[in-house]
Protein backbone atom coordinates (compact mmCIF):
# COMPACT_ATOMS: atom_id res chain seq x y z
CA UNK A 1 0.00 0.00 0.00
CA UNK A 2 1.42 3.35 -1.09
CA UNK A 3 1.60 6.27 1.36
CA UNK A 4 -1.16 8.14 -0.40
CA UNK A 5 -3.48 5.16 -0.22
CA UNK A 6 -2.69 4.79 3.44
CA UNK A 7 -3.63 8.38 4.27
CA UNK A 8 -6.97 8.06 2.52
CA UNK A 9 -7.92 5.06 4.66
CA UNK A 10 -6.95 6.09 8.18
CA UNK A 11 -8.75 3.99 10.78
CA UNK A 12 -11.59 5.97 12.34
CA UNK A 13 -10.34 5.02 15.81
CA UNK A 14 -7.16 7.04 15.25
CA UNK A 15 -9.31 10.08 14.40
CA UNK A 16 -11.40 9.47 17.53
CA UNK A 17 -8.31 9.26 19.74
CA UNK A 18 -6.74 12.45 18.39
CA UNK A 19 -10.05 14.24 18.77
CA UNK A 20 -10.34 13.20 22.42
CA UNK A 21 -6.85 14.51 23.21
CA UNK A 22 -7.48 17.82 21.46
CA UNK A 23 -10.81 18.39 23.20
CA UNK A 24 -9.32 17.85 26.64
CA UNK A 25 -6.18 19.96 26.03
CA UNK A 26 -7.72 23.45 26.37
CA UNK A 27 -8.95 22.57 29.85
CA UNK A 28 -5.33 22.44 30.99
CA UNK A 29 -3.67 24.96 28.67
CA UNK A 30 -5.52 28.27 29.00
CA UNK A 31 -5.62 30.29 25.80
CA UNK A 32 -7.80 33.37 25.50
CA UNK A 33 -8.56 34.42 21.96
CA UNK A 34 -10.44 37.73 21.66
CA UNK A 35 -13.97 37.25 20.33
CA UNK A 36 -15.53 39.16 17.50
CA UNK A 37 -19.23 39.52 18.23
CA UNK A 38 -21.45 38.20 15.44
CA UNK A 39 -24.21 40.61 14.35
CA UNK A 40 -27.09 38.26 15.28
CA UNK A 41 -25.80 37.91 18.85
CA UNK A 42 -25.41 41.67 19.11
CA UNK A 43 -28.97 42.06 17.83
CA UNK A 44 -30.39 39.86 20.59
CA UNK A 45 -28.35 41.67 23.21
CA UNK A 46 -29.47 45.06 21.88
CA UNK A 47 -33.09 43.94 21.92
CA UNK A 48 -32.92 42.92 25.58
CA UNK A 49 -31.03 46.16 26.25
CA UNK A 50 -33.88 48.17 24.73
CA UNK A 51 -36.59 46.72 27.01
CA UNK A 52 -37.47 49.22 29.72
CA UNK A 53 -36.92 47.90 33.28
CA UNK A 54 -39.94 46.70 35.29
CA UNK A 55 -42.17 46.82 32.24
CA UNK A 56 -42.75 43.84 29.97
CA UNK A 57 -41.34 40.42 30.82
CA UNK A 58 -38.99 38.20 28.84
CA UNK A 59 -40.34 34.70 28.25
CA UNK A 60 -37.62 32.06 28.02
CA UNK A 61 -38.58 28.71 26.56
CA UNK A 62 -36.00 26.30 27.95
CA UNK A 63 -36.15 23.57 25.32
CA UNK A 64 -32.73 22.02 25.51
CA UNK A 65 -31.87 18.70 27.05
CA UNK A 66 -28.83 17.64 29.11
CA UNK A 67 -27.17 16.46 25.89
CA UNK A 68 -26.75 19.98 24.59
CA UNK A 69 -26.14 21.51 28.00
CA UNK A 70 -22.56 22.67 27.17
CA UNK A 71 -23.92 24.84 24.36
CA UNK A 72 -27.26 26.05 25.67
CA UNK A 73 -26.73 26.27 29.43
CA UNK A 74 -24.17 29.13 29.22
CA UNK A 75 -26.58 30.94 26.89
CA UNK A 76 -29.38 30.61 29.43
CA UNK A 77 -27.21 31.86 32.26
CA UNK A 78 -25.83 34.83 30.32
CA UNK A 79 -29.33 35.82 29.17
CA UNK A 80 -30.75 35.50 32.70
CA UNK A 81 -27.95 37.64 34.12
CA UNK A 82 -28.64 40.28 31.49
CA UNK A 83 -32.39 40.37 32.21
CA UNK A 84 -32.07 40.34 36.00
CA UNK A 85 -29.33 42.98 36.00
CA UNK A 86 -31.59 45.25 33.97
CA UNK A 87 -34.64 44.66 36.16
CA UNK A 88 -36.57 42.77 33.50
CA UNK A 89 -38.86 40.05 34.91
CA UNK A 90 -38.32 36.57 33.49
CA UNK A 91 -40.88 33.82 32.92
CA UNK A 92 -39.56 30.38 32.07
CA UNK A 93 -41.35 27.40 30.57
CA UNK A 94 -40.47 24.23 28.65
CA UNK A 95 -41.96 22.13 25.90
CA UNK A 96 -39.13 19.61 25.92
CA UNK A 97 -39.80 17.06 28.65
CA UNK A 98 -36.11 16.80 29.54
CA UNK A 99 -35.60 20.53 30.01
CA UNK A 100 -37.22 21.46 33.37
CA UNK A 101 -34.30 20.19 35.46
CA UNK A 102 -31.88 22.36 33.53
CA UNK A 103 -34.17 25.38 33.55
CA UNK A 104 -34.43 25.18 37.34
CA UNK A 105 -30.67 24.75 37.61
CA UNK A 106 -29.98 27.80 35.41
CA UNK A 107 -32.47 29.97 37.31
CA UNK A 108 -31.31 28.88 40.76
CA UNK A 109 -27.59 29.24 40.01
CA UNK A 110 -27.95 32.70 38.41
CA UNK A 111 -30.22 33.92 41.22
CA UNK A 112 -27.73 32.64 43.84
CA UNK A 113 -24.84 34.30 42.05
CA UNK A 114 -26.58 37.66 41.71
CA UNK A 115 -27.94 37.56 45.27
CA UNK A 116 -24.45 36.96 46.65
CA UNK A 117 -23.29 40.06 44.78
CA UNK A 118 -26.25 42.24 45.85
CA UNK A 119 -25.36 45.22 48.04
CA UNK A 120 -28.53 45.11 50.11
CA UNK A 121 -31.01 42.45 51.01
CA UNK A 122 -33.72 44.38 49.17
CA UNK A 123 -31.83 43.86 45.92
CA UNK A 124 -32.17 40.08 46.05
CA UNK A 125 -34.34 38.41 43.44
CA UNK A 126 -37.67 37.02 44.59
CA UNK A 127 -39.50 34.07 43.06
CA UNK A 128 -42.95 35.12 41.92
CA UNK A 129 -41.99 38.77 41.57
CA UNK A 130 -38.77 38.80 39.52
CA UNK A 131 -39.02 35.37 37.98
CA UNK A 132 -41.37 32.45 37.58
CA UNK A 133 -40.87 28.98 36.13
CA UNK A 134 -44.04 27.46 34.71
CA UNK A 135 -42.72 23.97 33.94
CA UNK A 136 -43.44 21.56 31.09
CA UNK A 137 -46.60 21.22 29.03
CA UNK A 138 -47.65 18.79 26.30
CA UNK A 139 -49.25 19.87 23.03
CA UNK A 140 -46.59 22.43 22.16
CA UNK A 141 -48.25 24.41 19.35
CA UNK A 142 -51.71 24.31 20.89
CA UNK A 143 -50.28 25.56 24.19
CA UNK A 144 -48.33 28.36 22.47
CA UNK A 145 -51.45 29.53 20.68
CA UNK A 146 -53.67 29.30 23.74
CA UNK A 147 -51.20 31.35 25.79
CA UNK A 148 -52.05 34.23 23.46
CA UNK A 149 -55.42 34.41 25.18
CA UNK A 150 -54.38 33.59 28.76
CA UNK A 151 -51.20 32.02 30.14
CA UNK A 152 -53.13 30.86 33.19
CA UNK A 153 -55.43 28.82 30.93
CA UNK A 154 -52.47 26.71 29.84
CA UNK A 155 -50.47 26.76 33.06
CA UNK A 156 -52.91 26.97 36.00
CA UNK A 157 -50.00 26.11 38.33
CA UNK A 158 -46.27 26.71 38.11
CA UNK A 159 -43.56 24.01 38.18
CA UNK A 160 -43.52 24.00 41.99
CA UNK A 161 -47.28 23.65 42.30
CA UNK A 162 -48.15 27.27 43.17
CA UNK A 163 -51.36 28.65 41.73
CA UNK A 164 -50.45 31.01 38.90
CA UNK A 165 -52.85 33.69 40.06
CA UNK A 166 -51.14 33.75 43.45
CA UNK A 167 -47.85 34.93 41.89
CA UNK A 168 -47.59 38.75 41.70
CA UNK A 169 -45.67 38.66 38.38
CA UNK A 170 -48.33 36.50 36.74
CA UNK A 171 -51.06 38.87 37.90
CA UNK A 172 -49.47 41.47 35.64
CA UNK A 173 -48.35 39.22 32.78
CA UNK A 174 -51.58 37.79 31.43
CA UNK A 175 -50.67 36.93 27.84
CA UNK A 176 -48.27 37.91 25.04
CA UNK A 177 -49.27 41.57 25.34
CA UNK A 178 -47.09 41.75 28.45
CA UNK A 179 -44.18 39.83 26.91
CA UNK A 180 -41.40 41.83 25.24
CA UNK A 181 -39.77 38.83 23.57
CA UNK A 182 -39.83 35.05 23.66
CA UNK A 183 -36.32 33.59 23.61
CA UNK A 184 -36.18 29.91 22.74
CA UNK A 185 -33.10 28.03 23.88
CA UNK A 186 -33.16 24.75 22.02
CA UNK A 187 -31.31 21.91 20.41
CA UNK A 188 -34.13 21.19 17.99
CA UNK A 189 -36.37 23.09 15.60
CA UNK A 190 -38.61 24.63 18.27
CA UNK A 191 -38.35 28.36 17.32
CA UNK A 192 -40.09 27.75 14.00
CA UNK A 193 -43.33 26.98 15.86
CA UNK A 194 -43.14 30.29 17.67
CA UNK A 195 -42.56 32.06 14.33
CA UNK A 196 -45.34 30.23 12.49
CA UNK A 197 -48.02 30.37 15.14
CA UNK A 198 -47.85 32.91 18.02
CA UNK A 199 -45.85 35.42 15.93
CA UNK A 200 -48.28 35.29 13.02
CA UNK A 201 -51.32 35.46 15.28
CA UNK A 202 -50.20 37.69 18.12
CA UNK A 203 -47.13 39.48 16.75
CA UNK A 204 -44.85 37.97 19.40
CA UNK A 205 -41.18 38.91 19.03
CA UNK A 206 -38.96 35.84 18.82
CA UNK A 207 -35.30 35.43 19.73
CA UNK A 208 -33.33 32.20 19.88
CA UNK A 209 -30.28 30.46 21.25
CA UNK A 210 -29.55 27.31 19.30
CA UNK A 211 -26.90 24.63 19.02
CA UNK A 212 -24.37 25.32 16.27
CA UNK A 213 -25.80 22.46 14.18
CA UNK A 214 -29.25 24.06 14.21
CA UNK A 215 -28.51 27.78 14.03
CA UNK A 216 -27.84 28.26 10.27
CA UNK A 217 -31.43 27.16 9.62
CA UNK A 218 -32.55 30.40 11.26
CA UNK A 219 -30.30 32.85 9.40
CA UNK A 220 -33.05 33.49 6.80
CA UNK A 221 -35.43 34.38 9.63
CA UNK A 222 -32.94 36.77 11.21
CA UNK A 223 -32.60 38.52 7.87
CA UNK A 224 -36.36 38.94 7.48
CA UNK A 225 -36.67 40.19 11.06
CA UNK A 226 -38.90 37.29 12.12
CA UNK A 227 -36.14 36.38 14.57
CA UNK A 228 -35.00 39.43 16.52
CA UNK A 229 -31.62 37.97 17.46
CA UNK A 230 -29.82 34.65 17.65
CA UNK A 231 -27.09 33.02 19.70
CA UNK A 232 -25.40 30.38 17.60
CA UNK A 233 -23.86 27.49 19.52
CA UNK A 234 -21.08 27.81 21.99
CA UNK A 235 -19.66 30.75 20.06
CA UNK A 236 -22.92 32.63 20.47
CA UNK A 237 -22.94 31.81 24.18
CA UNK A 238 -19.34 33.01 24.60
CA UNK A 239 -20.17 36.23 22.72
CA UNK A 240 -23.22 36.91 24.88
CA UNK A 241 -21.19 36.24 28.03
CA UNK A 242 -18.63 38.75 26.82
CA UNK A 243 -21.28 41.38 26.07
CA UNK A 244 -22.83 40.88 29.52
CA UNK A 245 -19.38 41.27 31.09
CA UNK A 246 -18.43 44.31 28.99
CA UNK A 247 -21.64 46.13 29.92
CA UNK A 248 -20.94 45.47 33.60
CA UNK A 249 -23.89 43.13 34.17
CA UNK A 250 -21.57 40.34 35.39
CA UNK A 251 -18.21 40.19 37.08
CA UNK A 252 -16.86 37.03 35.50
CA UNK A 253 -17.16 35.22 32.21
CA UNK A 254 -19.11 31.96 32.05
CA UNK A 255 -17.65 28.67 30.86
CA UNK A 256 -18.50 28.95 27.17
CA UNK A 257 -15.06 30.52 26.56
CA UNK A 258 -13.16 27.33 27.49
CA UNK A 259 -15.60 25.28 25.47
CA UNK A 260 -14.90 27.53 22.48
CA UNK A 261 -11.22 26.62 22.57
CA UNK A 262 -12.02 22.89 22.56
CA UNK A 263 -14.38 23.47 19.66
CA UNK A 264 -11.73 25.37 17.69
CA UNK A 265 -9.35 22.46 18.22
CA UNK A 266 -11.90 20.04 16.74
CA UNK A 267 -12.38 22.35 13.75
CA UNK A 268 -8.64 22.41 13.16
CA UNK A 269 -8.41 18.64 13.44
CA UNK A 270 -11.30 18.13 11.01
CA UNK A 271 -9.66 20.52 8.54
CA UNK A 272 -6.31 18.76 8.85
CA UNK A 273 -7.93 15.40 8.18
CA UNK A 274 -9.88 16.76 5.22
CA UNK A 275 -6.61 18.10 3.78
CA UNK A 276 -4.82 14.79 4.40
CA UNK A 277 -7.67 12.88 2.78
CA UNK A 278 -7.61 15.15 -0.26
CA UNK A 279 -3.84 15.03 -0.70
CA UNK A 280 -4.03 11.24 -0.66
CA UNK A 281 -6.99 11.28 -3.03
CA UNK A 282 -5.17 13.68 -5.42
CA UNK A 283 -2.04 11.50 -5.64
CA UNK A 284 -3.90 8.22 -5.94
CA UNK A 285 -6.05 9.65 -8.73
CA UNK A 286 -2.98 10.96 -10.55
CA UNK A 287 -1.38 7.55 -10.26
CA UNK A 288 -4.52 5.87 -11.64
CA UNK A 289 -4.66 8.31 -14.55
CA UNK A 290 -0.97 7.70 -15.29
CA UNK A 291 -1.59 3.95 -15.33
CA UNK A 292 -4.36 4.37 -17.91
Amino acid at each position, binding site marked *: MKWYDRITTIDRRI*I*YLLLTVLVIMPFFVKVTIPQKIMPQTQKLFDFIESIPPNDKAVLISFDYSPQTMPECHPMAKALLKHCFARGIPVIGLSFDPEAPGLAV*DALVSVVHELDSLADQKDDSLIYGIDYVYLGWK*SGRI*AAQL*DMGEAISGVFPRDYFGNLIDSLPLMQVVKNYKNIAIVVILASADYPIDWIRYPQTRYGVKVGAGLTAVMAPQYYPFVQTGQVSGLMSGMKGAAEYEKLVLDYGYARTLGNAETGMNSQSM*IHILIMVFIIIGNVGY*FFSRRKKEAQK
Partner: protein
Amino acid sequence: MKRKLPLAICFITGVSMIVQFFIPHPTSLEFSSMIYKWIIVLMALALILAIGNLIRHHGNKIRRKKENWQYSIVTLSGMVVMATIGLAWGIDPDSLYQRIYLNVMAPLGGTMFALLAYYMASAAYRSFRARSLEATLLLLSAFIVMIGFMPFGQYLHPRFPAFAEWIMKVPNMASQRGILLGVAFGSIATALKIILGIERSWLGGKE
Protein backbone atom coordinates in the same frame (compact mmCIF):
# COMPACT_ATOMS: atom_id res chain seq x y z
CA MET B 1 -67.93 3.27 8.63
CA LYS B 2 -64.51 2.64 10.20
CA ARG B 3 -62.98 4.73 7.42
CA LYS B 4 -65.76 7.27 6.97
CA LEU B 5 -65.92 8.41 10.56
CA PRO B 6 -62.25 9.47 10.85
CA LEU B 7 -62.49 11.16 7.44
CA ALA B 8 -65.60 13.06 8.56
CA ILE B 9 -64.02 14.16 11.86
CA CYS B 10 -60.94 15.21 9.94
CA PHE B 11 -62.93 17.25 7.43
CA ILE B 12 -65.15 18.98 10.00
CA THR B 13 -62.38 19.90 12.43
CA GLY B 14 -59.99 20.91 9.66
CA VAL B 15 -62.47 23.20 7.94
CA SER B 16 -63.74 24.73 11.20
CA MET B 17 -60.18 25.57 12.25
CA ILE B 18 -59.55 27.24 8.86
CA VAL B 19 -62.76 29.25 9.22
CA GLN B 20 -61.83 30.15 12.79
CA PHE B 21 -58.56 31.66 11.55
CA PHE B 22 -60.54 34.35 9.71
CA ILE B 23 -62.94 35.24 12.53
CA PRO B 24 -61.56 37.40 15.34
CA HIS B 25 -64.84 37.35 17.31
CA PRO B 26 -64.61 36.24 20.99
CA THR B 27 -66.84 33.22 20.33
CA SER B 28 -64.43 32.03 17.66
CA LEU B 29 -61.49 32.56 20.04
CA GLU B 30 -63.27 30.58 22.75
CA PHE B 31 -63.81 27.77 20.27
CA SER B 32 -60.14 27.69 19.28
CA SER B 33 -59.08 27.90 22.93
CA MET B 34 -61.27 24.89 23.70
CA ILE B 35 -59.73 22.92 20.82
CA TYR B 36 -56.20 23.82 21.98
CA LYS B 37 -57.01 22.58 25.47
CA TRP B 38 -58.33 19.36 23.99
CA ILE B 39 -55.09 18.88 22.07
CA ILE B 40 -53.04 19.38 25.24
CA VAL B 41 -55.15 16.87 27.15
CA LEU B 42 -55.23 14.31 24.31
CA MET B 43 -51.47 14.50 23.86
CA ALA B 44 -50.96 13.89 27.56
CA LEU B 45 -53.39 10.95 27.40
CA ALA B 46 -51.52 9.45 24.45
CA LEU B 47 -48.48 9.36 26.72
CA ILE B 48 -50.26 6.81 28.91
CA LEU B 49 -50.77 4.55 25.87
CA ALA B 50 -47.13 4.96 24.93
CA ILE B 51 -45.84 4.16 28.41
CA GLY B 52 -48.16 1.14 28.43
CA ASN B 53 -46.52 -0.05 25.24
CA LEU B 54 -43.05 0.51 26.68
CA ILE B 55 -43.86 -1.55 29.79
CA ARG B 56 -45.53 -4.30 27.74
CA HIS B 57 -42.69 -4.52 25.22
CA HIS B 58 -39.92 -4.72 27.81
CA GLY B 59 -42.02 -6.83 30.20
CA ASN B 60 -42.50 -9.41 27.42
CA LYS B 61 -38.80 -9.35 26.66
CA ILE B 62 -37.93 -10.07 30.28
CA ARG B 63 -40.62 -12.72 30.73
CA ARG B 64 -39.64 -14.62 27.60
CA LYS B 65 -35.94 -14.08 28.29
CA LYS B 66 -35.45 -12.82 24.74
CA GLU B 67 -31.97 -11.87 23.54
CA ASN B 68 -30.47 -8.95 25.57
CA TRP B 69 -33.39 -9.03 28.00
CA GLN B 70 -31.12 -7.61 30.74
CA TYR B 71 -31.21 -4.19 29.08
CA SER B 72 -34.97 -4.17 29.47
CA ILE B 73 -34.59 -4.44 33.25
CA VAL B 74 -32.38 -1.32 33.18
CA THR B 75 -34.97 0.55 31.10
CA LEU B 76 -37.94 -0.35 33.28
CA SER B 77 -36.18 0.13 36.61
CA GLY B 78 -34.80 3.50 35.46
CA MET B 79 -38.31 4.65 34.66
CA VAL B 80 -39.87 3.36 37.88
CA VAL B 81 -37.08 4.64 40.16
CA MET B 82 -37.03 8.16 38.70
CA ALA B 83 -40.83 8.46 38.74
CA THR B 84 -41.04 7.20 42.33
CA ILE B 85 -38.34 9.55 43.60
CA GLY B 86 -39.96 12.50 41.85
CA LEU B 87 -43.45 11.70 43.15
CA ALA B 88 -42.39 10.82 46.68
CA TRP B 89 -39.75 13.46 47.46
CA GLY B 90 -40.65 16.23 45.05
CA ILE B 91 -38.78 18.01 42.28
CA ASP B 92 -37.46 21.08 44.09
CA PRO B 93 -34.01 22.46 43.19
CA ASP B 94 -32.42 20.63 46.16
CA SER B 95 -34.35 17.38 45.73
CA LEU B 96 -32.86 13.95 45.12
CA TYR B 97 -34.65 13.89 41.77
CA GLN B 98 -32.86 17.05 40.64
CA ARG B 99 -29.52 15.72 41.89
CA ILE B 100 -29.89 12.45 39.97
CA TYR B 101 -30.98 14.41 36.94
CA LEU B 102 -27.96 16.71 37.00
CA ASN B 103 -25.37 14.12 38.02
CA VAL B 104 -26.47 10.99 36.17
CA MET B 105 -28.73 11.93 33.29
CA ALA B 106 -26.87 15.08 32.24
CA PRO B 107 -23.43 13.44 31.83
CA LEU B 108 -24.97 10.40 30.11
CA GLY B 109 -26.80 12.65 27.69
CA GLY B 110 -23.70 14.76 27.12
CA THR B 111 -21.82 11.62 26.13
CA MET B 112 -24.44 10.86 23.51
CA PHE B 113 -24.22 14.32 21.94
CA ALA B 114 -20.42 14.23 22.10
CA LEU B 115 -20.52 11.21 19.77
CA LEU B 116 -21.61 13.64 17.11
CA ALA B 117 -18.17 15.30 17.08
CA TYR B 118 -16.53 11.92 16.49
CA TYR B 119 -18.92 10.91 13.77
CA MET B 120 -18.71 14.30 12.12
CA ALA B 121 -14.91 14.17 12.06
CA SER B 122 -14.83 10.72 10.51
CA ALA B 123 -17.66 11.44 8.07
CA ALA B 124 -16.01 14.71 6.95
CA TYR B 125 -12.70 12.91 6.42
CA ARG B 126 -14.32 10.17 4.34
CA SER B 127 -16.65 12.22 2.22
CA PHE B 128 -15.10 15.68 1.73
CA ARG B 129 -13.01 14.79 -1.32
CA ALA B 130 -12.46 17.08 -4.30
CA ARG B 131 -13.91 14.55 -6.75
CA SER B 132 -15.49 17.09 -9.08
CA LEU B 133 -15.82 20.83 -9.56
CA GLU B 134 -18.93 20.94 -7.36
CA ALA B 135 -17.25 18.91 -4.64
CA THR B 136 -14.24 21.22 -4.75
CA LEU B 137 -16.45 24.28 -4.39
CA LEU B 138 -18.23 22.62 -1.46
CA LEU B 139 -14.89 21.84 0.14
CA LEU B 140 -13.60 25.38 -0.29
CA SER B 141 -16.73 27.00 1.10
CA ALA B 142 -16.74 24.59 4.06
CA PHE B 143 -13.16 25.60 4.80
CA ILE B 144 -13.87 29.30 4.58
CA VAL B 145 -16.91 29.03 6.84
CA MET B 146 -15.08 26.90 9.40
CA ILE B 147 -12.08 29.24 9.56
CA GLY B 148 -14.27 32.33 9.48
CA PHE B 149 -16.31 31.18 12.45
CA MET B 150 -13.31 30.20 14.54
CA PRO B 151 -12.10 32.87 16.97
CA PHE B 152 -8.68 33.07 15.33
CA GLY B 153 -10.14 33.30 11.80
CA GLN B 154 -9.92 37.08 11.94
CA TYR B 155 -6.16 36.90 12.50
CA LEU B 156 -5.54 34.90 9.31
CA HIS B 157 -7.18 37.69 7.36
CA PRO B 158 -9.38 40.46 8.79
CA ARG B 159 -11.97 39.86 6.06
CA PHE B 160 -12.30 36.13 6.75
CA PRO B 161 -15.23 36.30 9.20
CA ALA B 162 -17.10 38.68 6.89
CA PHE B 163 -16.54 36.41 3.90
CA ALA B 164 -17.69 33.37 5.86
CA GLU B 165 -20.78 35.29 6.86
CA TRP B 166 -21.42 36.28 3.25
CA ILE B 167 -21.34 32.61 2.24
CA MET B 168 -23.86 31.79 4.96
CA LYS B 169 -26.06 34.77 4.22
CA VAL B 170 -26.15 34.79 0.43
CA PRO B 171 -25.58 31.47 -1.38
CA ASN B 172 -26.54 29.34 1.63
CA MET B 173 -29.62 31.34 2.41
CA ALA B 174 -30.77 31.41 -1.22
CA SER B 175 -30.69 27.61 -1.46
CA GLN B 176 -32.35 27.23 1.94
CA ARG B 177 -35.15 29.53 0.85
CA GLY B 178 -35.64 27.49 -2.32
CA ILE B 179 -36.10 24.31 -0.29
CA LEU B 180 -38.26 26.12 2.29
CA LEU B 181 -40.59 27.31 -0.44
CA GLY B 182 -41.05 23.78 -1.73
CA VAL B 183 -41.55 22.52 1.79
CA ALA B 184 -44.18 25.20 2.51
CA PHE B 185 -46.20 24.16 -0.54
CA GLY B 186 -45.75 20.52 0.28
CA SER B 187 -47.07 21.21 3.78
CA ILE B 188 -50.13 23.06 2.53
CA ALA B 189 -50.88 20.45 -0.11
CA THR B 190 -50.48 17.59 2.38
CA ALA B 191 -52.77 19.35 4.87
CA LEU B 192 -55.41 20.01 2.21
CA LYS B 193 -55.18 16.47 0.87
CA ILE B 194 -55.80 15.02 4.32
CA ILE B 195 -58.59 17.46 5.20
CA LEU B 196 -60.34 16.78 1.89
CA GLY B 197 -59.83 13.03 2.26
CA ILE B 198 -57.71 12.67 -0.88
CA GLU B 199 -54.73 11.33 1.05
CA ARG B 200 -55.69 8.15 2.87
CA SER B 201 -52.40 6.30 3.21
CA TRP B 202 -52.51 7.02 6.93
CA LEU B 203 -55.76 5.08 7.08
CA GLY B 204 -54.31 2.12 5.24
CA GLY B 205 -54.92 3.43 1.74
CA LYS B 206 -58.02 3.20 -0.45
CA GLU B 207 -61.42 1.97 0.68
